[in-house]
Every structure is written in structure tokens, then in C-alpha cells.
């Protein structure tokens, strides 16, 4: 019982481990795929921002261009307009860059980007101021002064490009640091992966060990069951034996009497013959008569002893053999004859048919003796007592019916008759095994043992298949 409880807990522990390992590996796989998606998303996001900054640099060039172009076209209003348009486009792009980079007021990164963008703003103003100065000099027809500012404007433009480049570098830096951060997280997930793999290994190991233990446990159980079945079989054999000995015990007195009577006859006859012969009072023919009487008595004794010997041996392993029905019935009745006669019971046995039964004769004899003994016990109170044996062969079964003068058995008792240990006899008189064992014996012959409920008297029927019955040809020939 204790061992079972331990197994029970181990089973739940293993199941828990299995669920944990599966959930952990699912969670890990989910974390990894979302991490991957995140990496892709962040990278794409920062690449896009980098492009926006590159685009801003190109627009800055477009803002710077009219300040140079005016030296060729000399058309100030047109170049001023070009500059204004380019600046509008630049402003819009800058707004977009601001939105992209300044997305949280609190972060340090946002502050840095805001300051870098502020620089760009200032540089652009300084460049625009120079461009507007050049346009003014052109309007005042002072091309020489305008030419002197051109280098300054280009220097301011260089500074503007530098400040836009700083933003671009910062974006690149942030992108790289995000990448490194993700790489670190990936490394951590990898460690977690080892951990989960360890759990899965542990789970497989546990299941394997448990399976091995279980298979041993099952093998042990099967072995125990086999031993148990063998014990039951041995016990059943002992029961059959003890039931047989019990019916023998019931008859022991009768058998002793049955043997002592003929012994007395032999002793008496021999004594008398010896005396008469020595006194010369007996003739040879009288002596022969005495001896033949003694011989007959000896045969009677030998029949009883043969019956006893056959009955008492263990017939469990006997092969089925052809035996004369007559021999089985006569030898069985010989064993209980004294008891029957002593109780004033009339034994009604008609002509026993000359059949050969393929059977274990000792076992059929045991069943018949059991039925006759039961009948003997059941009819004690009757004034006219009889037990009858009838034989019947049809195309299906050979039946031997044991009927007594009783008036049948109540249904409530009849139902339990064949149940082991059920008895209506007084304590100590019956084991309650006789009928159940007899039933088992008939079943091993492919037959049945039943109570004939339709008979007006108490009647038990032993049946064996008709295929086990043959006519005794020897007897026929002799007849």
C-alpha cells in the first residue's frame, strides 16, 4: 500500500514537471519570436529615421542653391522665390524629423536630439541670413559685396551640413545601441533556452525511469497474479481431496463393519472346517462348499477394497479413459451399501446399461457417492425410505439420475445448492463443498450437475455428453 502511495506522488510530480517544461518552452519560443519581430521593427524604424535625416540634408542643399544660382541668373526675385519654396519644403521635412526623433520629453536621448535639432535650426538661420544678404547686395547692384559674402554663406552651409550629419550619426549610434541591447537580450534568452532544454531532458529521463519502474511493477503484478492463480488451483485440488475424505470419513464405520463381517465369516468357516476335518466329521464335498463360500466372501472384500483404493487416490491428473458404467456404479454402491442398508433405505437400481464411459472414473464415482450420501442424510425422517438410480441416453447427453423419496428442495435453497460452503446439514456433518465440487467435476467432463425441479421427488441429474458414451461390445458378445 505504502509503495503505491509513493508511486502516486511521483506520478503527479512528473506530470507537473512535464506541464512546466512544455509551458516554459512555449513561453520561450513566444519570447524569441516577439524579440525577433521587435528587432526587425526597431531596425526598420531607425533606418527610416536615418533616411529622413538624409532627405533633410538634400533639402538643405536646395535651400542653399539659390544663393549661388543668383550669381548666374542675376534674377533676384526668382531666386528669392526658389529659396523660399525650398525652405518651406525643408521646414516640413524638419518637422517630420522632429516628430520622429523627439517622441518623449523625458528621455535623455530626446533631449540630445532636441539640442541637435536646435543647432540645425540655428545653422539654417545663419545660412538664410547670409543668402538674404547676398540677395540684398544684388538688388543694390553691389555684386562685388555679394561675391564677398558668398564664401561665408557656403561656410554656413558647411556648418549646417555638419549639424545635420551629427543628427545622422546620433541616429546611427542609437540604432547600434538598440541592436546591442537586443543582442544582449537574445543572449539571455539563449541561457533560458538551455534551462528549458535541461527541463525537457529531465522530463524525458523521468518518464523513461517511471516507465521502466512501471513495466517492472506490471511484470511483478503479473507474476504475483500467476502465483496466486497457482495457489488457488492447488487449494481447489486440496478442497476436492478434503471433500472426498470427508465422504470417506462418513462411511468409515460402515466400511469397517462391511469388512469385519466377511472376515468373521472366513474365520468362522475356516475354524469349523478345520475342526470338523480333524475330527473326521466333514466330507470332501462339504469342505469344497465351505471353501467356495470363503472364496465368495473374499471376492466381496476385494471389491470393497478396490473401490476404496480407486476412490481415495487423487484423480485430478488422470487421463480420460473408457470405463464400464456398471463397474463405476457397482463399486460406488459397494462403498455406501452398509450405511444405506443400516438405515433401512431401499436402493432401487434397475438394470445398469452396458455402456463404456470415456471419463475419469474416480471422479464420477465421487460425484455419485456424494449424491447418494446426500440423499441418505436427507431422508432420515421418512418412514419408507428409498433411493433410485436411473440411466438415460439421448442423442445429446447421457444422464444418471439420483432420486430419493424426498419431496424436492425449496427454490430458495435450490438456488444456493451449488455455491461452495453452502450446507443445510448440522454443524460438523457437511463441509458444504460436495455439490460445488461435484458440479466442477461434471463441468470438466463437458457435462452438468443439476437439480431436476420438475421431478415430484428430489432428483439430481449427472450429465455427460453422449459423445463420451459407447456400447460395451464385449458384454454383448458374451450375452
Amino acid at each position: 500500500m505504502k509503495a503505491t502511495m509513493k508511486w502516486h506522488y511521483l506520478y503527479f510530480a512528473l506530470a507537473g514537471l512535464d506541464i512546466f517544461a512544455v509551458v516554459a518552452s512555449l513561453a520561450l519560443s513566444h519570447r524569441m519570436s516577439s524579440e525577433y519581430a521587435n528587432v526587425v521593427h526597431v531596425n526598420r524604424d531607425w533606418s527610416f529615421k536615418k533616411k529622413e535625416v538624409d532627405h533633410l540634408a538634400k533639402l538643405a542643399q536646395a535651400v542653399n542653391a539659390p544663393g549661388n544660382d543668383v550669381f548666374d541668373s542675376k534674377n533676384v526675385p526668382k531666386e528669392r522665390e526658389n529659396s523660399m519654396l525650398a525652405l518651406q519644403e525643408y521646414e516640413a521635412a524638419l518637422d517630420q524629423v522632429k516628430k520622429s526623433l523627439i517622441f518623449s520629453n523625458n528621455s535623455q536621448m530626446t533631449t540630445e536630439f532636441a539640442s541637435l535639432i536646435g543647432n540645425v535650426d540655428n545653422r539654417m538661420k545663419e545660412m538664410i541670413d547670409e543668402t538674404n544678404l547676398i540677395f540684398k547686395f544684388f538688388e543694390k547692384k553691389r555684386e562685388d559685396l555679394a561675391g564677398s559674402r558668398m564664401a561665408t554663406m557656403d561656410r554656413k552651409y558647411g556648418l549646417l551640413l555638419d549639424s545635420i550629419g551629427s543628427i545622422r550619426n546620433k541616429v546611427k549610434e542609437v540604432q547600434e545601441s538598440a541592436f546591442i541591447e537586443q543582442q544582449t537580450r537574445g543572449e539571455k534568452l539563449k541561457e533560458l533556452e538551455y534551462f528549458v532544454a535541461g527541463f525537457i531532458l529531465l522530463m524525458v529521463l523521468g518518464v523513461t525511469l517511471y516507465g521502466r519502474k512501471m513495466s517492472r511493477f506490471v511484470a511483478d503484478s503479473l507474476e504475483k497474479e500467476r502465483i496466486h492463480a497457482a495457489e488457488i488451483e492447488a487449494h481447489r485440488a486440496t478442497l476436492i481431496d478434503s471433500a472426498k475424505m470427508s465422504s470417506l470419513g462418513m462411511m468409515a464405520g460402515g466400511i469397517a463393519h462391511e469388512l469385519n463381517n466377511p472376515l468373521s465369516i472366513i474365520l468362522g468357516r475356516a475354524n469349523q472346517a478345520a475342526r470338523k476335518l480333524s475330527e473326521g466329521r466333514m466330507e470332501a464335498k462339504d469342505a469344497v462348499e465351505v471353501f467356495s463360500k470363503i472364496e465368495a466372501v473374499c471376492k466381496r472384500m476385494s471389491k470393497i477394497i478396490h473401490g476404496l483404493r480407486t476412490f481415495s487416490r487423487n484423480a485430478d491428473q488422470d487421463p480420460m479413459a473408457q470405463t464400464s458404467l456398471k463397474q463405476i456404479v457397482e463399486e460406488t454402491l459397494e462403498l455406501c451399501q452398509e450405511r444405506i442398508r443400516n438405515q433401512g433405505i431401499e436402493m432401487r437400481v434397475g438394470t445398469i446399461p452396458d455402456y463404456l464411459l470415456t471419463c475419469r472414473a474416480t471422479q464420477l464415482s465421487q460425484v455419485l457417492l456424494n449424491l447418494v450420501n446426500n440423499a441418505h442424510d436427507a431422508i432420515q425422517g421418512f418412514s419408507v425410505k428409498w433411493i433410485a438410480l436411473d440411466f438415460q441416453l439421448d442423442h445429446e447427453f447421457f444422464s444418471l439420475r439420483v432420486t430419493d423419496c424426498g419431496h424436492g428442495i425449496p427454490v430458495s435453497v435450490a438456488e444456493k445448492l451449488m455455491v461452495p460452503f453452502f450446507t443445510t446439514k448440522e454443524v460438523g456433518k457437511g463441509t458444504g463443498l460436495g455439490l460445488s465440487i461435484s458440479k466442477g467435476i461434471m463441468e470438466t467432463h463437458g457435462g452438468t450437475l443439476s437439480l431436476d425441479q420438475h421431478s415430484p421427488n428430489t432428483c439430481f441429474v449427472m450429465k455427460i455428453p453422449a459423445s463420451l458414451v459407447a456400447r460395451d461390445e464385449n458384454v454383448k458378445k458374451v450375452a
Partner: protein
Amino acid sequence: MEHALKDKVVLVVDDEEDLREILAEEFMDLGSKVIQASSGTEAYAKTEATNVDVIVSDVRMPGGDGVELLKKIQARNPQEPVVILVTGFSDFDTQNLVTMGAYAVLSKPFDPSEVIAVAVKAIMSKG
């Protein structure tokens, strides 16, 4: 000298005819008058009709056993006839049967001369 059993009436009771015959022959050889019965009931009826000196009876018999016969005889007259029981196998022990009034209890198989000797002793004891 005359044998103690001469002219005595002996009732031999046994369901086995051969045994009755053997005992009857023994007693008749000594000059006794022998009556036979095959059961206790039959034997008791015969003691009512005839004066019997000695009964030699089997114990187990169909139709009234030897113990029943002994009880009935004792109830009628504990003095006579004397009852000698011969048992092949009995549920009663010998001492019990003697207490109940049997003169002696012999066991089968028996030697007829042994039965005669006990019967003689029984007749002598009566005087």
C-alpha cells in the same frame, strides 16, 4: 459331564445369514437350542414368544440394531436373558454398552470358540 450350554436356548441375531449359520452350528454342536433373527426388532419379538437364555447379537443392523434390543430387554427384565453383543464397528464404546447391561462386548472378526467361552461364562454366572 454335560456341557453348560446343553438344552439352553440361544438367540443368534445378525443380518448376515452366513454369520448366523456359523454361530448356530457352534451352539447346536454343544446341544443348545438355537433360534435366529435378522434384526433387533425380530429378535425382541422372539424373546416375547420363547424363553431365551442367551442372546448373541450384532450391533449394526437394518430394522432395529443391537443396542435398541439391549435397551428393550433391560427395560423388561435386567436379569435375563443375558445379552452378548458382537460389534463390527460401533459408535458406542465397549464400556458404555457394558454399563447399559450387556454381559460382554466382542469385536468382529471373532473366533467362534471365543463366543462360546463367553456364553458359557454367562450361563455359569447365572447359576
